[in-house]
């Protein structure tokens, strides 16, 4: 499931061996120190969805900051997906009017590449219309590329208090060191939180790639019951420094 990719440091290859979601899982993830993300993964089982939306409605939907709803693009039950989504929206309107709502159009790797933009645009338009007056943001995602990471990064970004101030400080720091770019990553998930880019770079997916590289290495280190504290890589053209920055973040400086 998606949760295991982003939060438990599995890499996409490993989840093939985990088997499809078969139960309702509830888990909580702590990040940035004191933010807790509660995840209910229903795996598309109708009976469970009914249960949660009826009997546990007020428990789940109170004090919600973020609702992330995942639509599988290859679903056989589009109508019931929409029905449950609408129920969730109604609950949000009732209990947590100010929540941010994000919709992930997932498993996009199953759609032929030339049809992806159209498929996403259609779905997005449909969902935005249905969700009015709530303002929603949609993402097209797949566990097999960096789109999922980008979606989660945006979601996390919206959760961080004082994110503008953070951005300003980062930019000042980048200027002072004359760095090409400086990026802040959340410690457990290695999601990009903030960035300051002084020299443009052609690869738009590079932060997700760095995140994957580091997570892969984290996995290797954990076999030796250790963790890395800092990574420095250089050649004649660049030097990259990745270090623990605060108790909840890593910083990457590229010179």
């Amino acid at each position, binding site marked *: 499931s998606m949760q295991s990719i982003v939060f438990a440091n599995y890499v996409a290859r490993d989840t093939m061996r985990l088997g499809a979601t078969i139960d309702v899982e509830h888990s909580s993830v702590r990040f940035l120190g004191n933010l807790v993300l509660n995840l209910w993964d229903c795996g598309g089982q109708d009976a469970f969805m009914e249960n949660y939306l009826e009997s546990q409605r007020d428990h789940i939907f109170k004090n919600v900051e973020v609702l992330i709803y995942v639509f599988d693009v290859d679903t056989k039950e589009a109508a019931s997906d929409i029905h449950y989504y609408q129920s969730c929206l109604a609950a949000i309107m009732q209990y947590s009017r100010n929540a941010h709502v994000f919709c992930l159009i997932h498993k996009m790797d199953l759609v032929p590449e030339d049809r992806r933009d159209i498929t996403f645009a259609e779905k997005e338009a449909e969902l935005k219309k249905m969700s009015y007056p709530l303002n929603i943001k949609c993402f097209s995602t797949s566990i097999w590329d960096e789109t999922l990471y980008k979606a989660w990064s945006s979601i996390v970004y919206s959760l961080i208090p004082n994110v503008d101030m953070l951005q300003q400080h980062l930019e000042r720091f980048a200027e002072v060191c004359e760095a090409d770019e400086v990026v802040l990553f959340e410690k457990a998930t290695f999601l990009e939180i903030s960035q300051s880019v002084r020299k443009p770079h052609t690869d738009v997916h590079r932060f997700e790639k760095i995140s994957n590289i580091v997570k*892969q290495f984290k996995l290797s280190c954990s*076999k030796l019951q250790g963790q*890395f*504290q800092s990574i420095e*890589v250089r050649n004649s053209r660049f030097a990259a420094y990745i270090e623990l920055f605060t108790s909840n973040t890593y910083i990457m400086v590229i010179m």
Partner: protein
Amino acid sequence: KNIIFDVFIHKVDGLSDDHKIACQRDIQMQTEQELAEARIQPRVAFHLTSIYDHSIFEAFSKVIQKLIPQLPPLENLLDMLTSSSHLEKTFLFDVVSKIYIATDSTPMDNTLYELCSDMIDVVVDVSCIYGIGEGDEGYGYDPESASIIKLSTKRVLYLREVNQYLALVCVLREENFDRIGLIQYNFQCFKEAIEDIFAINTKGRRPRPPVMATELPK
């Protein structure tokens, strides 16, 4: 008559450790029996391998090492470097395939080999993103390629480019890394000696043994 045989007992990832050892023992015994009956005694080595972990790389490393005529001087150089610079373990890796062609004579530790191999992945992948110029081919591995990774276990991984195909990866304790000047000097001696060894076929001159420092000058 001098051909070396290596047997890979492959796809063992599905078996438990005991089962793997039993499997190897069975195959080995059967083979030895049949060879004895046929009255031939070739050199045969057995390896348990799987593509889902590093075992296949380790096996190929051992195969390749038997084919390199320069292995003894390479191992000597690595021993010299390891002891003079107070390193724990050193490997000479082929960067593209991540098999190691030589290591020092301290006991082999497969987990260290895996970690060093994964370090090469980090270096190559990061260099591919930031270390390639416009219109450049290749993977950003150049003569100044280097990396330092500090671990929470008070150990440091240190990588230096040796030539366009090879990298030296060392594991050392953090306190010994303070003497980085010493390590860099000795590495330079090491690198020049390696160049001599591989040039000997083309230039036909004997390499001078390097002189490595064990202490920094006061």
